[in-house]
């Protein structure tokens, strides 16, 4: 790994990388195992440090929202960018940016969510990579619906939906209060059963 790339990686960790730099790190991470390992070590160290810190940003709702989104984003990154390990950007709007340490904690949350979704899902465990799921057709397309794709859905869809369910449950807990959202999370072991599915976007 070149020194320039290492600098870009540090900048990405610090949230100082511009779009071009971030893309470069992402692209290289897909090819460079050393870079991926370095990235993981940075996050591991930061996660350990984060356990001993009392980062005041964690006290705010926006920081927590950021952490939840990091969890979601990490999981999505795993889905959509094979072998690419990267970091998220601060929110575009509606939330607060988080410092390096806060985002490092978010990585740990992200890993937890991703692993829970991936390994806790009986559906996914049963599906070989790339396998589709037999589906039914929903006839009531809305005015802007697009209905010209083949009738298969992918495990990425299930994984993405699981991440969204987790996000919704956490947000419900924040907004409404109550122990039930937490109970839902702590007992979340399986993907929801698909009862109806129809046209995926495209067949790659």
């Amino acid at each position, binding site marked *: 790994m070149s020194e320039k790339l290492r600098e870009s990686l540090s900048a990405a960790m610090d949230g100082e990388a511009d779009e071009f730099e971030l893309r470069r790190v992402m692209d290289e991470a897909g090819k460079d195992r050393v870079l991926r390992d370095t990235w993981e070590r940075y996050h591991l160290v930061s996660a350990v440090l984060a356990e001993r810190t009392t980062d005041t940003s*964690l006290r705010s709702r*926006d920081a927590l929202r950021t952490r939840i989104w990091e969890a979601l*984003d990490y999981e999505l990154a795993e889905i959509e960018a094979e072998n690419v390990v990267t970091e998220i950007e601060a929110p575009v709007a509606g939330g607060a940016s988080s410092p390096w340490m806060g985002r490092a904690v978010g990585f740990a949350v992200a*890993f937890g969510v991703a692993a829970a979704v991936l390994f806790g899902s009986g559906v996914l465990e049963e599906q070989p990579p790339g396998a589709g799921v037999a589906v039914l057709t929903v006839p009531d397309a809305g005015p802007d619906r697009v209905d010209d794709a083949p009738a298969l859905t992918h495990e990425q869809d299930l994984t993405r939906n699981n991440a969204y369910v987790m996000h919704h449950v956490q947000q419900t807990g*924040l907004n409404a209060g109550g122990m039930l959202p937490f109970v839902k999370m702590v007992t979340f072991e399986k993907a929801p*059963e698909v009862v109806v599915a129809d046209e995926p976007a495209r067949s790659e």
Partner: protein
Amino acid sequence: MPGRIYSASASNALRLVQALVLLVGAAVMPVFAADRDTADTPHAWLERMDRAFRELSYDGTFSYFNGSDLASLRVVHKEVDGVQRERLVHLNGKRREIVRKGDEVACIVMPGDELLELESSIPSGPFARAFVRGYQNVQDHYRLTLAGSERIADRLAVRIDVQSRDADRYGYRLWLDEANAMLLRSELVSAGGQRLEIFQFSRIAFGNEVDDAALRGHEGDGAMISHLRLSKPPASGGTHADVPWTAAWLPGGFRMTASDIRRKPSDLSSVHTLMYSDGLAAFSVFIESMPQQGAGSMRSRMGATVTLNRRMQDGEGAEYLFTLVGELPDDTAERILSGFESSR
């Protein structure tokens, strides 16, 4: 016994018992004395439930059924030296514990359990805040009635039915301890009366029976401990980002409580998230550019929570993936999602 109908005489007798219980309760528990005159209304009971979660000491085991799986958990709550302390233990499967001391939270899991930090939104008690805080809106769209008394966890409980006034949301049945208003059981029910989620204590002890030692987490056997700080409830109104989509139709009483925009790291594309609530029920909508892989339109359900994906186009023909997640009937979710319009 859900759906049980009480005769007028039984109901009157029940109210008399309730009044007596409350009178005695008010004498021994000053915290509830202010409710003495209005205690026999659903609202008064819900207010007491809210306080019960925070002010009572309790140690109980409850079950939670989400429509397909049954989980068992133990909760211990007590105020020690003016500090709220709480412990929640997952009794089945992987051992997971949450130990809370004021705003400080420790999550105890065994090695290999990756649900390490999911407790970050652990709140102070089930349901109560939502029912009380959104009461006015709740009244407009839910009908609250006292529905008799039953025995739950070997204790007398008052049942409150929270029935939806339309078919666009689910209802609730709540059983509150007659002596102290603690929530002993709740059901989330469909319009047809189907129970979608059940929460119920099987055993619960109060007051001096709660041992301080029960608040201490079990940290042995190589358990991993993560220390976090509890987040504060969001300010009213939440945060709102400029999202170029609007819902053309929402069920009555639902309003947007938060909106946000984030970028995905994989391609720097943005995901819009919108959250709506009527005070009790809530749903989230996620909007993103059509992914290159997957993105099938599908509907799934786990208990009361539906997940719905749909492909939509904006005015320029660009494709987007919409995902709705929430505690809603299928038809309502479909109608909401199909009504989204581009506002640009």
